């Protein structure tokens, strides 16, 4: 195998020629653009404008989101961020508490104002699927496209397998008991949306009727409870909207059962055949529902929607567009990882597929309680290079939940936050992996975004979180490039692309990413410690910097090494895996080297040789594991100051 396949010869991604031409053309026609992204905790504003003869990013500012009382109006936070932007740039963007539109001859004001938002809580969704092994995974994949929180699952094969005939399935007393049990389950945590899935095209309809009956019964009771609550000026969730994504043959009967009590929106079958899957229509329907039901609930929406050009786009949709764009225009197989206060998302776009996973309930502030409940305390603690009790971690996480805007005061606090971020990303990646039949996803460009990753004090900390949490295998090329969206422009540029694709791609190329470096991933099986405690050498890498300077390093199995390689430098590699170890899709033990002109590029971290194997093997013993973490963190210069000694 030839490692020269690594297609990253330029520190900047090349802009397609047509985009370059269009970008130049836009310079004359588009003035200043103000893009805001309203998160659940922070509101960020970015200003783009003509600089010289180019369309460029000018500055970014942020303020706390003001969705909650006493403001209860996000426009206050937008205004604060814009005022901050005015202070940074010295440019006048507002006048009499209003945005100055259009741009004036003296450069003040803006021509275009666009907005993305993730400030609204996730849609509460119940998945009602015929089978837990076929239709449910497809339904889970579909809900991953937008901000959703799966509050319950109902599957027909749960406790009702013994019922064989249609009569049994609908009318027997066992079926009645099952019906009641599932209805109660739905009512215990009432959803806003029920996604009904199951049955291949032309298959039996009774199982879907059965699910519809559960949803109808629960919807009727929810409607009743909502009515009772409304009479006392209280609120209770009304009947859910049912998205029907099952066997189309059953739709007329299902609609007859459901329409008296719930709104039904039909989309093409998620699984038209046993081996075929189409999640896009259901995904699109859920995204529409989020835009329809949730985005307008953002306090201050009526005013904000009048200010902006076009619709206020969900942040996830705009970020997803960037991954898609990188694959389509640059041929880069990309994974974007976004760790937010309320949500954690992954957006994958490679040659074969395009998969979003948005965990609308898991995050590193508002989403912490859900994160701990799903992943458990031990899974978070394993990432720490120091001792912390489960009790202290719980107290820490709940304190962060009740005061989400706080920043880590000490290096220890920062390390805990990073450990939580690892697990949040792990929770999202597990869903992605489940949807890919348990296989790892293929990508060679990994971009981190969101406040936690963007504000990592040291680049090595961000690189470590991405590598530990997602454990890229770098199948194929053998390497993965790491970058961070430190300016947090990804959602803004995704949104700008709707209005001016050329300008968005031009700015993305020049101003968006901070390159961390290139990671070479070595895979193979060996015990972490052999006789005498020394692990075998997994790989020997010789790095020859363009312009001079050669380094040769031996990396033992289970360890990671970082070799400095500046962002403006490139280097040729000669990689010699030891017997039993391989890099990318190369054969075990076979050497690889970069071809001339296809050298790897550097970054703020440099060349990372990750010989820890996949999946990572963490020591069982606490002391040994903490020592292991110290070694790994130390390699990245990511160790909290207090733990360095």
């Amino acid at each position: 195998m030839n490692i020269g396949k690594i297609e990253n010869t330029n520190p900047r991604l090349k802009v397609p020629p047509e985009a370059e031409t269009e970008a130049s053309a836009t310079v004359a026609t588009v003035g200043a653009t103000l893009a805001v992204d309203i998160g659940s905790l922070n509101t960020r504003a970015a200003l783009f404008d003509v600089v010289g003869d180019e369309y460029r990013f000018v500055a970014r500012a942020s303020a706390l989101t003001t969705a909650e009382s006493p403001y209860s109006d996000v426009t206050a936070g937008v205004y604060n961020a814009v005022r901050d932007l005015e202070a940074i740039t010295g440019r006048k963007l507002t006048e009499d508490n209003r945005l100055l539109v259009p741009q004036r001859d003296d450069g003040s004001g803006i021509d275009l104002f666009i907005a993305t938002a993730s400030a609204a809580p996730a849609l509460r969704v119940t998945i009602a699927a015929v089978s837990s092994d076929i239709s449910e995974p497809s339904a889970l994949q579909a809900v991953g496209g937008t901000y959703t929180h799966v509050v319950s699952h109902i599957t027909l094969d749960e406790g009702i397998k013994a019922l064989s005939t249609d009569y049994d399935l609908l009318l027997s007393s066992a079926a009645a008991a099952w019906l009641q049990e599932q209805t109660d389950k739905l009512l215990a945590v009432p959803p806003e949306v029920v996604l009904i899935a199951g049955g291949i095209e032309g298959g039996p309809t009774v199982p879907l009727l059965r699910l519809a009956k559960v949803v109808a019964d629960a919807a009727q009771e929810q409607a009743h409870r909502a009515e009772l609550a409304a009479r006392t000026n209280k609120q209770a969730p009304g009947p859910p909207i049912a998205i029907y994504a099952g066997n189309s043959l059953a739709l007329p009967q299902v609609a007859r059962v459901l329409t008296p009590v719930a709104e039904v929106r039909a989309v093409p079958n998620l699984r038209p055949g046993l081996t075929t899957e189409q999640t896009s229509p259901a995904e699109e329907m859920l995204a529409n529902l989020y835009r329809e039901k949730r985005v307008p609930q953002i306090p201050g929406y009526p005013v904000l929607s009048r200010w902006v050009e076009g619709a206020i786009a969900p942040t996830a949709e705009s970020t997803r567009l960037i991954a898609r764009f990188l694959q389509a225009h640059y041929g880069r197989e990309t994974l974007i990882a976004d760790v937010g206060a309320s949500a954690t998302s992954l957006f994958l776009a490679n040659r074969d597929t395009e998969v979003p996973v948005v965990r609308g309930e898991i995050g590193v502030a508002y989403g912490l309680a859900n994160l701990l409940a799903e992943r458990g305390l031990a899974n978070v603690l394993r990432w720490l290079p120091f001792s912390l009790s489960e009790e202290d971690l719980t107290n820490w996480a709940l304190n962060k939940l009740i005061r989400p805007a706080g920043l880590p005061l000490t290096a220890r606090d920062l390390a805990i936050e990073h450990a939580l971020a690892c697990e949040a990303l792990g929770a999202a990646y597990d869903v992605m992996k489940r949807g890919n039949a348990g296989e790892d996803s293929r990508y060679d460009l990994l971009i981190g975004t969101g406040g936690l990753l963007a504000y990592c004090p040291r680049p090595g900390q961000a690189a470590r979180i991405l590598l530990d949490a997602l454990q890229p295998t770098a199948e194929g090329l053998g390497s993965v490039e790491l970058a961070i969206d430190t300016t947090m422009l990804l959602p803004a540029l995704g949104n700008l692309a709707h209005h001016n694709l050329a300008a968005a791609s031009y700015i993305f190329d020049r101003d968006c990413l901070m390159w961390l470096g290139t990671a070479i991933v070595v895979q193979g099986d060996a015990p972490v410690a052999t006789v005498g405690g020394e692990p075998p050498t997994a790989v020997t890498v010789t790095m020859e910097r363009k312009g001079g300077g050669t380094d040769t390093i031996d990396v033992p199995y289970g360890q990671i090494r970082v070799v400095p390689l500046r962002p403006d430098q490139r280097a040729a590699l000669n990689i010699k895996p030891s017997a039993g170890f391989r890099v990318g899709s190369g054969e075990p033990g076979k050497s690889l080297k970069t071809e001339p002109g296809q050298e790897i590029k550097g970054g703020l971290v440099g060349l990372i040789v990750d010989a820890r194997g996949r999946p990572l093997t963490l020591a069982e013993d606490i002391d040994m594991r903490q020592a292991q973490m110290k070694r790994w963190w130390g390699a990245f210069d990511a160790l909290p100051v207090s733990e360095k000694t």
Partner: protein
Amino acid sequence: MSIYYPIPQPTIATNILLRRDRRLPVPGEVLVRAGARVEPGDVVAQSMLTSEPVVVNIAADLDLSPQATARRLLVSPGAQVERGGTLAQRAGRGSRVSRSPVAGTFSGYDPATGTGQIVAPSEPVSVTAHLKGIVTDVIPYYGATIETPANLVRGIFGLGGERHGVMKVLVTSADESIAPDRLDARVAYSIVLGGSEITADALRKLIELGARGVITGSIRASELSDFLGYAGLDSWRMGVVRAESKGWDFPPPTPSSERAVPPDFVLIITEGFGTAPMCRRVFETIAAYDGQEIAVDGSTRLRGGLSRPEIIIPLARTTAVRRPGEISPRLAMGSQVRLLAQGYLGQTAQIVELPTGPRSSQSGVVAQVADVQMADGQKMRVPLVDLEAIE
């Protein structure tokens, strides 16, 4: 980074003129008049919650025509039905049952549509003054506005709704915890003030002795979990609508069937989870009114209508009071601040340096910061978001 850090609401506001609208959820009769002096338990307005009839499609439940259904009704107009009680039944193969979704009176069956109606009984509803004060305005048909000079303290989270009672200080300092073995019958009917952490045992003992509530600095997550009867970390999940909450009520409510705590018991935590002492300024503000009647509200919501628990101490004097809007402590040189950072909860300090522009803080995170000096002379660089100005 932002140059603007809003202080949404001061957590300690002394000598303010507090006004609260007390409203019924539905129109009713107002029982007070403007100028009247009210006590916390006085009923300001009352009404009856009448229920709309609940329509049940009995024919659809039985999968029969309306006429055929009429013959299978098991209740007659005027009959009392229980929730889940049988209204009609179709026997034999394919037997079906129609059940009442609510308890109430079966008011009749419509043979044209196949539907029946159940009317749930009316329930009385009232709103009390909650505060000791003066009625300044009457809200016709709904309630009244009560005004009183007061000290207002906000906690960080709590349990229970509105309650009032005599406040009893059970500790001598802000860093002392309430020991269960020192509790006795004297806490009955009172709202007690502790200092640092409180245990589940102490909370249970307080309930057993008839205390109405407790205000304290902190509680360990495990103790609160034990007290609430939580089943592991799953019970802490947020954003899930359950037990009539909107999903962001905190701590997440348990279903009423599993509730281990009386719904009217109030717990207010001022600092957070762990073992932190109560902020000294908060402690002194409340403790100075030992033996006086106070009003508390423990309800907390983190999102979708943020609300924090409140402690209202009505004051006797009627002069030198300020409007709540006049209190806006700022983070400035020399300001007294309360630390909100983990590990430093409950501590106060003074700002000794306020650098302009973002700076690297102790953790390395770059943010707007302040250099503060703690009571023991220790100096620290703290992000502004981890500070709260106090007067």
